[in-house]
């Protein structure tokens, strides 16, 4: 499938829902974990789209549905205009790849670096057996690794090296779209910076589009042109991180930003501490999901009516009754 670079929208998600059944005795379904509960978004070619949230937000699940590692319960996902469920899997995998969170556990401990990075080349028959070694070497070089690592096993690599191997593996098929699921969360600070630099360089060099999933607001803001903040399976705010993180409109985004421990002297506002805990995704609150903890709750409308994600400014959407004041 050739990617037409003039086409703007690379990925489109419509009405995505993913529920995981909870099975009781005698295999009867007694409930659902509503991991993703109605998400729409679109990712433009060449951009880095950030997806932020805490546990239970559904951000990883969204990534996995787009990567077709999970099948959606409802909704449609389009890649380059075509529904991904209608595309042959091999074709999809050649255009879309994933970088995982913990590099050391996403590499098969029984395979060498050469095997690991060469695997996609073998599966998709991109290179012949003789070519694999040289192809893998040049991939390693591109991610900043020496070919002396070819015969090493994952446990013999550092976290940073292992993640670079994971990136090299993802690049082996020359994809256009990369889903990065917390790619630097398990790494040390100094190594994080190295890997982020690498991702930025690769994007420029290869014209990649990224979906960057993370809980780290600073990192997401640093890399992304657009960001979506998720809470309990829905997007609550979406827009340009420069604007959004500077002056957030949704109370959850405000609390999230205020919660980040800062090394700069804090602005004089007191930190916003949310009451309570993140509710369970099984018994989702009625109305706006955030109302149980929201410091800016208006009233019964928050408890009864679910706010719709609405555009409040060009390219900036919020799902909150406060912001939808007529």
């Amino acid at each position, binding site marked *: 499938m050739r990617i037409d670079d003039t086409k703007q929208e690379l990925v489109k998600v419509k009405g995505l829902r993913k529920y995981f059944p909870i099975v009781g005795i005698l295999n009867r379904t007694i409930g659902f974990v509503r991991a993703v509960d109605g998400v729409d978004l679109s990712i433009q070619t060449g951009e880095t789209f950030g997806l932020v949230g805490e546990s239970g937000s559904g951000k990883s699940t969204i990534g996995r549905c787009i*990567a077709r*590692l999970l099948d959606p319960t409802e909704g449609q996902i389009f890649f380059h205009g075509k529904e991904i469920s209608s595309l042959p*899997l*091999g074709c999809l*995998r*050649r255009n879309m*790849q*994933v970088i*995982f*969170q*913990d590099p050391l*556990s*996403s*590499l*098969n*401990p*029984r*395979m060498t670096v050469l095997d690991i990075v060469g*695997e*996609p080349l073998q*599966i*998709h028959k991109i290179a012949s*057996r003789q070519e694999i070694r040289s192809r893998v070497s040049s991939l390693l070089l591109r991610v900043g690794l020496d070919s002396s690592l070819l015969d090493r*096993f994952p*446990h013999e690599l550092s976290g940073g090296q292992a993640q670079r191997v*994971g990136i090299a*593996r*993802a690049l*082996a*098929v020359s994809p256009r779209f990369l889903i990065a699921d917390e790619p630097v969360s398990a790494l040390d600070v100094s190594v994080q910076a190295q890997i982020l630099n690498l991702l930025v360089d690769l994007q420029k060099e290869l014209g990649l589009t990224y979906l960057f999933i993370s809980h780290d607001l600073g990192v997401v803001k640093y890399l992304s042109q657009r960001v979506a903040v998720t809470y309990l399976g829905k997007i609550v705010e979406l827009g340009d991180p420069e604007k959004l993180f500077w002056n957030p409109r949704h109370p959850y985004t405000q609390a999230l930003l205020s919660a980040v421990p800062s090394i700069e002297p804090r602005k004089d506002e007191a930190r916003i501490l949310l009451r309570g805990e993140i509710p369970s995704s099984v018994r989702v609150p009625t109305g706006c999901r955030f109302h149980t903890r929201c410091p800016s709750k208006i009233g019964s409308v928050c408890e009864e009516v679910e706010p719709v994600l609405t555009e409040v400014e060009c390219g900036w959407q919020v799902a909150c009754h406060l912001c939808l004041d007529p």
Partner: protein
Amino acid sequence: MTVLGFLRDRASQSIRLIGHNKVALTGTIIIVGILLMILLADVIAPYDPEKQFTRLVPPCSEYLLGTDRLGRDVTSRLIYGGRASLMVAVVSVTIAMAVGVPIGLISGYFGKTLDNVLMRIMDVIFSLPALLLAITIVAILGPGLLNAAVAVGVSYVPRFARITRGPVMSVKERPYVEAARAIGASSRRIVFKYVLPNASSPIIIQTTLALSSAILAEAAISYLGLGVQPPTPSWGSMLNEAKLYLFIAPWLSISPGIAIVFTVLGLNLLGDGLRDVFDPRLRRRL
């Protein structure tokens, strides 16, 4: 990549690695020693194992390990007996592995209904007393060493299925398996290249344990007259015969006993060593 080339490459690598691992090396030496002894039985054994001499002679210069209740030379019977015991052990465990491991793999990887059905079948076999099962099978197939081996093998299938299924179920949830799906690997590739190698340690250990207990199982079956047919010797049957003469002729139980212990030790060491040899994490840089 041709299978032969792959095996040759792995074989030479493994041999080098075994050489460096003391445990595996000791185990290998013991087992190789025993195998040699068995293969060269015709050359080494001092007498015909079935020929009868003076009965119940204690160990002396003429009969190194003494003679048994029918006057047969224990040393020769020991050497030839190894054949029967090891043959049953190897054949039965091979059958058990060849059937049990794939069942465990399929069950563990695909889960749900298939898993339920397969495991219930395994439960049924497991719940039958091994000896009863063996007797039934031998009754159908007829007595003899090979049939005894088949019977033991069948009774060990659930063991291998179970010991494979557990690790398979946990390994298939690991991130690197998900990563393999993400790069487009087929189920077959994932099962053989990602899941099985990482779930194999318990299988290797179980193999050595099964080999050891198969030797003893053979003894029980032969005792009932369903396995090795007298006068052919086997360590297990020698042990059983010796039981009656425990106090007046202790040498009759000591020799096959030691032979079994030695073999079991060698097998266990070999198994431990092999497991270490195949685990890249324990491999030191050579």
